[in-house]
């Protein structure tokens, strides 16, 4: 059975396409708060599957612009919702993927940058919005968005890097803030932030060994990866763990074959899409991280994805590298 598993590309493309048409039900309202993120996940999955034209570019761009929150000067997940760093990054990623950052115009771009910078706190961390939640996820979000816009500055980067390094733990993992338990998603956000800031050299060789060790111990006998010790495997960790390993140059410290098999087992063979674990309900979040993980492992000529930005390499190769000349 396992030998015959293959990636059902066409089904996944149709699944992602279908998400956009289910517009008028209660379930759809329930996920409004994730809509812009959802479009980024869908578009990125389509790019990896080499089918970006499945979404109508003009429609997507005009939806992104309709999510602009003029009061706070950044992007909300849905029209008339509130701006947040997470959704702002999604908006910037979508526009960059379409090579359409110009549609922001000078005015919006200036406000956007000041929204992001304005959420940085004194210790270098970022809050997600004005209500003060701090998490290394937001450091990554802020640095990634500014980097895509080509607007990083040492005033922002240096304290952010200090903060990220404080989230490094004794076990080789990273937590959501200093003293918090290591979590694979935080490894990605912290290493990603350091990579964007071009500051991976702040980690010693010993630390890199420890980080690689903690990460590769996420693989379980069934092949899937978990996010923390003694937890269940989950397809999204294929991304958080693999991208982290890729960033520190140790991608092959886990077993590709077993992980590939685990991801492929999480496919819905009828309607397409990938779930967190075999037999569970699929969603676009696990679909993108499943195919992105496969792409990192070089599976079946998938379009190469950038482990730092989680966007196609063909897009990220055009970003200005920090520090700017």
């Amino acid at each position, binding site marked *: 059975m396992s030998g015959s598993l293959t990636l059902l590309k066409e089904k996944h493309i149709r699944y992602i396409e279908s998400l956009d048409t289910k517009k008028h039900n209660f379930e759809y309202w*329930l996920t409004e*708060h*994730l809509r812009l993120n959802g479009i980024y996940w869908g578009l990125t999955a389509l790019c990896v599957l080499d089918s970006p034209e499945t979404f109508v570019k003009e429609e997507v761009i005009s939806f992104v612009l309709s999510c602009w929150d003029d009061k706070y000067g950044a992007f*909300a997940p849905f029209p*008339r919702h509130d701006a947040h760093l997470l959704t702002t990054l999604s908006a910037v990623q979508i526009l960059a993927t379409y090579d359409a950052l110009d549609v922001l115009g000078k005015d919006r771009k200036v406000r956007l940058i000041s929204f992001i910078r304005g959420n940085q706190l004194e210790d270098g961390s970022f809050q997600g919005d004005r209500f003060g939640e701090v998490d290394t996820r937001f450091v990554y979000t802020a640095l990634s968005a500014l980097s895509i816009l080509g607007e990083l500055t040492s005033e922002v980067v240096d304290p952010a890097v200090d903060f990220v390094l404080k989230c490094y733990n*004794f076990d080789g993992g990273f937590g959501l803030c200093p*003293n918090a*338990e290591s979590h694979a998603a935080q490894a990605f956000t912290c290493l990603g932030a350091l990579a964007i800031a071009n500051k991976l050299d702040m980690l010693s060789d010993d630390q890199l060994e420890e980080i690689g060790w903690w990460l590769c111990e996420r693989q379980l006998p069934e092949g899937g990866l978990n996010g923390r010790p*003694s937890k269940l495997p989950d397809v999204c960790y294929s991304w958080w763990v693999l991208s982290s390993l890729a960033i520190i140059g140790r991608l092959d410290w886990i*077993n590709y074959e077993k992980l590939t098999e685990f991801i492929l087992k999480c496919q819905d063979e009828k309607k397409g899409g990938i779930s967190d674990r075999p037999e569970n309900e699929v969603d676009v979040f696990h679909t993108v991280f499943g195919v992105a993980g496969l792409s990192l492992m070089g599976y079946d000529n998938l379009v190469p994805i950038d482990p730092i930005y989680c966007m196609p390499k063909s897009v990220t190769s055009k970003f200005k590298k920090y520090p700017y000349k």
Partner: protein
Amino acid sequence: MRDEKIYSIEALKKTSELLKKNPEFNAIWNYRRDIIASLASELEIPFWDKELVFVMMLLKDYPKVYWIWNHRLWVLKHYPTSSPKVWQTELAVVNKLLEQDARNYHGWHYRRIVVGNIESITNKSLDKEEFEYTTIKINNNISNYSAWHQRVQIISRMFQKGEVGNQKEYIRTEISYIINAMFTDAEDQSVWFYIKWFIKNDIVCKTLDEQEYLKMLKDLRENILLINNDEIEFSGKQNIWCLKILLVLEDILEEKEALTERSSEQYLVQLIDADPLRKNRYLHLLEQHK
């Protein structure tokens, strides 16, 4: 209503209804906070208590939704009096939550925030109590990595703040606790990650003198070898975590020039076979050991 900037009790009730249906709707939480903030001067303590009850009710159904935890913290931050009592209640809340889900990531994060607040209001350290709490949690389930993690944080802090009377004694007790845990469940990686930290960290290295430190490492090695031999006898297989930590021990002993016989290469070759998922890491280490 939000767009018209209506900040009334009536509007607040509306947000309750919406949030019960969809607690992930962040914009509604934001609106709710704006309403509360604008009415704050008229709101008495019972209102704030009721708000905490409302949040609790949602948390019971959705313990993993970030936005609800955020809102709870926001409410507590704006609670009109800063008596320890309200935070003590939070500690009871988080105790209960961690009883139901002993690994809840937000739960432990929240616990650290709550304890920090109680400490700063009462100006009294809770390190001893929190240390005991991790012991209870680990004794309940030795694979509770969140509790082991917390134990590292607290021990580090206690030594840093000079809260430990007899430091050497403390370390000896901890070592026997670890060895005990190791024998209880040698398969689980939680205790091994803890051991890896324990034998390499500054607190232990600086508290013990060179002789004591080396003796501790050698004792530990004996015990690990014992566990591994038991395992070989019992199942015919090596215990992979025993091998992984033996490697760490040998590296330290070698650095201290206290290693008589080196087995690292052999361990690595065995690991390639016994832990094939991580084969490439062992090949990499073999390369380094040459």
